[in-house]
C-alpha cells in the first residue's frame, strides 16, 4: 500500500511539472501544437524505456483489442474539454470543477467496476472522504491570491 501511495504522489508531482511546462509551450505556440508535441514526447519516452525494460516483448501484442487503440483518444478529449472549459469559465472555477469531476468519476468507477475494473465496495466513508477532499480543493482554489488568477488565464 505504501508503494501505491508513493507512486501516486510521484505521478501527481510530475503532472504538476508537466502542466507548468506545457503551459509555457502553449504560450509560444498553440494548444494543438503543444498537445502533439507532448504526446509525441510521451510516446518516444515510453517506447525507449519499454524497449530497455521489456526488449522485443514490447511488440508482443497478442491480446491487442480495438478499444486499446482508441484509448489514446482520451488524451485528445482531455485537451479539447480543458481548453473549451477554460475559455468559457474563470480558470479557478474550471480547474475546481475538473478536479472535483476527476475524484467523483474515480469513486463511481471503483464502486461500479466499469470496464472490468475490480469493484471496491461503496461505503459512506468513501463518500465522506471524497466530499472532504472536494471541500479542500474548493477552499484551496478559491482562497488563492487574486492578482495572479486574473492575470494568467490558462
Amino acid at each position: 500500500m505504501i508503494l501505491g501511495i508513493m507512486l501516486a504522489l510521484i505521478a501527481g508531482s510530475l503532472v504538476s511539472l508537466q502542466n507548468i511546462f506545457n503551459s509555457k509551450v502553449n504560450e509560444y505556440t498553440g494548444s494543438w501544437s503543444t498537445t502533439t508535441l507532448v504526446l509525441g514526447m510521451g510516446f518516444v519516452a515510453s517506447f525507449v524505456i519499454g524497449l530497455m525494460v521489456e526488449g522485443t516483448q514490447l511488440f508482443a501484442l497478442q491480446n491487442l483489442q480495438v478499444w486499446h487503440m482508441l484509448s489514446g483518444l482520451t488524451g485528445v478529449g482531455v485537451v479539447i474539454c480543458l481548453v473549451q472549459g477554460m475559455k468559457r469559465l474563470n480558470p479557478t472555477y474550471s480547474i475546481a470543477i475538473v478536479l472535483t469531476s476527476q475524484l467523483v468519476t474515480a469513486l463511481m468507477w471503483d464502486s461500479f467496476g466499469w470496464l472490468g475494473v475490480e469493484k471496491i465496495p461503496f461505503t459512506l466513508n468513501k463518500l465522506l472522504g471524497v466530499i472532504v477532499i472536494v471541500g479542500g480543493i474548493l477552499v484551496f482554489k478559491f482562497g488563492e491570491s487574486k492578482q495572479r488568477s486574473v492575470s494568467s488565464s490558462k
Partner: protein
Amino acid sequence: MRGIIFSILGGAFITLQGVANAQISQQLGTWQAATLTQFTGFLMALMILLIVRDGNRQGFKQIKPLYLMSGSFAAIIIYSEVTAIHQIGITFTISALLIAQLCLTFLIDTQGWFDVPKRKMNLPQFIGIAMMVAGVVILKF
C-alpha cells in the same frame, strides 16, 4: 453552462485515461500500454493539428528544451499511476495524485520557480491541503 459541462467531461476523461491504461496494462503489459496510448493519442493530435494549424512553428525556437521535453514525463506518470491503481484502487490513487499535484504547483507558485510569477501563500491553502489529507484518511477508514 457549456463551460461547466466541458470541465466536468475534462475531469472524467483524465480519470478514464488512468483507468483505461490500468486495464490495458493487465492485458498487454504496462510499457506496452503506455507506448500504445501515447502513440494513438499522438497520431490523433497530429491529424487535428494538420487541420487546424494553430500557433506559429517559429515559437518553438524560443522555448527552453526542458519545457519542450516535459511530454516525456508521461512515461513515468503512466507507469506510476497504473501501478498505483492496481495496488490501492482508483479513488485512493487519484486522491493522492491530486494532493501531490496541488502541493507542488503551489510550492512552485510561492517560490516563483521556472519563471512562474510569484504568488503569496495564504491561510486558505493550508486549510485546503489539511482538508484534502483529512479526506484521504477518511477514505481509508
